[in-house]
């Protein structure tokens, strides 16, 4: 269910620490070369899931990054556009890599251990549970609409047809949210007696990684603001 202290994997808490440090750095750093280096690290993390996983994630992240680059270039200058695009790529890529390895249940347990208030913690964990459900509904809607003759391929002439995808998706998302709430409440989500599973204790590798991450963050921040 969860990795033990002797597991070769990092504990969920360590992964979330890494994500937090990474997100903090990406938001703080302005230097283009550092953001570019960060993007390479993120790319390597994504590639760790294999070529199929890398392609699947890039298919989602790359268009958004490209769009931000194009819009940024149009409104500002090329350097600002590149900075915005690299920052977005790092944020999305790091989140994707992290949440692919940490389940919503593990995230919820870590947040509870960190004494994050139940409201915001619920929004995050429910959101993580919701994403794969929405993705499968999106696939079903796309199939259903194409099977009734509506062309949804990414072509300029098909832009008007995308309403056939977006409106059912909106309705289904609302229905899914209702279903999710009912399913969770029907098994006592609001119970005050809730007792979460114990977190796996961090091992030596976890502590080493955490210390290394903080050291790298300190060096980068010193270079950015203190040098």
């Amino acid at each position: 269910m969860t990795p033990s202290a002797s597991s070769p994997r990092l504990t969920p808490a360590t992964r979330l620490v890494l994500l937090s440090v990474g997100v903090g750095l990406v938001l703080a750093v302005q230097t283009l070369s550092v953001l570019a280096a960060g993007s390479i690290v993120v790319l390597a993390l994504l590639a760790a899931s294999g070529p199929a996983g890398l392609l699947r994630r890039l298919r989602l992240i790359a268009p958004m990054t490209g769009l931000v680059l194009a819009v940024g270039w149009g409104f500002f200058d090329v350097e600002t556009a590149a900075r915005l695009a690299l920052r977005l790529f790092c944020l999305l890529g790091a989140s994707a890599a992290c949440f692919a390895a940490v389940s919503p249940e593990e995230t919820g347990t870590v947040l509870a251990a960190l004494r994050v208030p139940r409201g915001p913690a619920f929004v995050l964990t429910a959101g993580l549970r919701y994403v794969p459900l929405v993705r499968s509904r999106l696939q079903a809607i796309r199939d259903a609409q194409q099977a009734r003759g509506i062309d949804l391929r990414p072509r300029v002439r098909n832009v008007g047809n995308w309403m056939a995808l977006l409106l059912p998706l909106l309705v289904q998302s609302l229905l899914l949210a209702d279903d999710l709430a009912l399913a969770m409440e029907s098994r006592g989500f609001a119970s005050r007696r809730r007792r979460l599973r114990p977190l796996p204790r961090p091992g030596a590798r976890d502590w080493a990684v955490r210390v290394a991450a903080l050291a790298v963050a300190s060096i980068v921040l010193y270079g950015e603001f203190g040098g």
Partner: protein
Amino acid sequence: MAADLELEQVSYAYPGGGRALAELDLDIEAGSYAVVFGPNGSGKSTFAYLPNGLIPHVVGGVLGGRVTVRGRDTRTHRPDSLFHLAGLVFQDPEAQLFSSTVRDELAFGLENMGLAPGVVADRIRATADRLGIGHLLDRSPDTLSGGEQRLAAIASVLAMDPPIVLLDEPFAGLDWGFAPRVASILRELNRAGKTLVVVEHRAGDYLRDATRLLVFGRGRVDLEAPGGRDAERMLKACRMLPEYAPLPAPDAAGDEVLAVQALSASIEGRPVLDRVSFALHAGEVTALVGENGAGKSTLVRHLIGLAAPSGGSVRLRGRGITGRPPAELARQVGICFQNPNDQFFTASVRAEIEVGLHRRHPGGGRGLEEICRLFDLGALLDRPPHGLSAGEKKRVAIAAVLALNPAVLVLDEPTAGQDAAGKERLAAVIGRLSAAGTAVLLVTHDLEFAAACSRRWVRLHRGRVMADGPPQAIGLPLGPSAAGGEGAL
């Protein structure tokens, strides 16, 4: 015997909606096994949401009267103090399973009960063993077959060991292998002292285990009878089970319209279809049957190029479909998937049908009026599709696909969520389409419906065509109430 569940003069209206229950009086005794039937919209599922307080605390709406669960009034007790007393298995297992693994799914309720981690682990193991799903514990629910998902959903409730278990259509979509398993699980639970309430549309051997039969109509109990051997006869007498017209005499098969030739496919490296071959002919109704997870849905997606095969081909009137966009192929092969809500995006039934009328090849085909007549939609034309009943939605969804005037119509689980009247109407429509020359492919677990519509069955088993011929030659458990709840023939 003391009542586990008492409903006194219960009426209920959904937020912004009409009345779903009206002055419902009902006692469910401890240790009883009640089966609830009724047409779509009769209030069966609404009733199932009452005992653990989802209505009114989560769903909202206006609840009148009193619902008492083991002495607790649901107006003053919220779901978090009722969930361990009255467990609810939802109609759609996909809507119930939200965790990353089956193990996490089973742990969710147990952790909310405040049990120690060791007890949680023991309960998960015991429940998984009882239901025979130990090998699924570390799988993600969305990788399971429909039958496995149903078992996981039941396990997620049984793990909490509630004394009352309500199951909303537990046999829906189950094949002849899984349905008897579920029937047997319910029998054992009841023998162990659980109070069971099963809401269903389907008959089956499980009715013999029931101690009580309730038939709902317009939000109240219209008829009450003992369960057991006479239950099925009683349900037929009050038109709760479909009675199909006999199939017309067979005509000679028309020209070949669509041919699947040695089609193979994989999903994430796992082989799903293995050299599947069969052909569809004009005017012929073919039923594609197979166990949960046999590859039926994957095969359907390949018929108009929604997925790419790893080998073999699909040929439409002799021409391969490779490289042709699905939306263009849909003008010749219309597919109506299981969930009508995936299709609807306009404000009226008329507009939904017109989407197809505007996209079809020019020259011929049924007009709006004829389609409405065929599906009896005249009175619904200006209504929003999302506001219709399940049966009406299904008719609109098929009509919208048929508006493209396809030569082949594929219906994926058309009887899902349909009551007896809806199934009878669907069977009649399929008969008329066949008579008009449309090749129809029915993808279904409902063997009774398949037998009522089709003389030719193609059986898919673990991705291969196991048999192709008349139902009697297919090797499925035919006979009265076969399979414990599904596909009585």
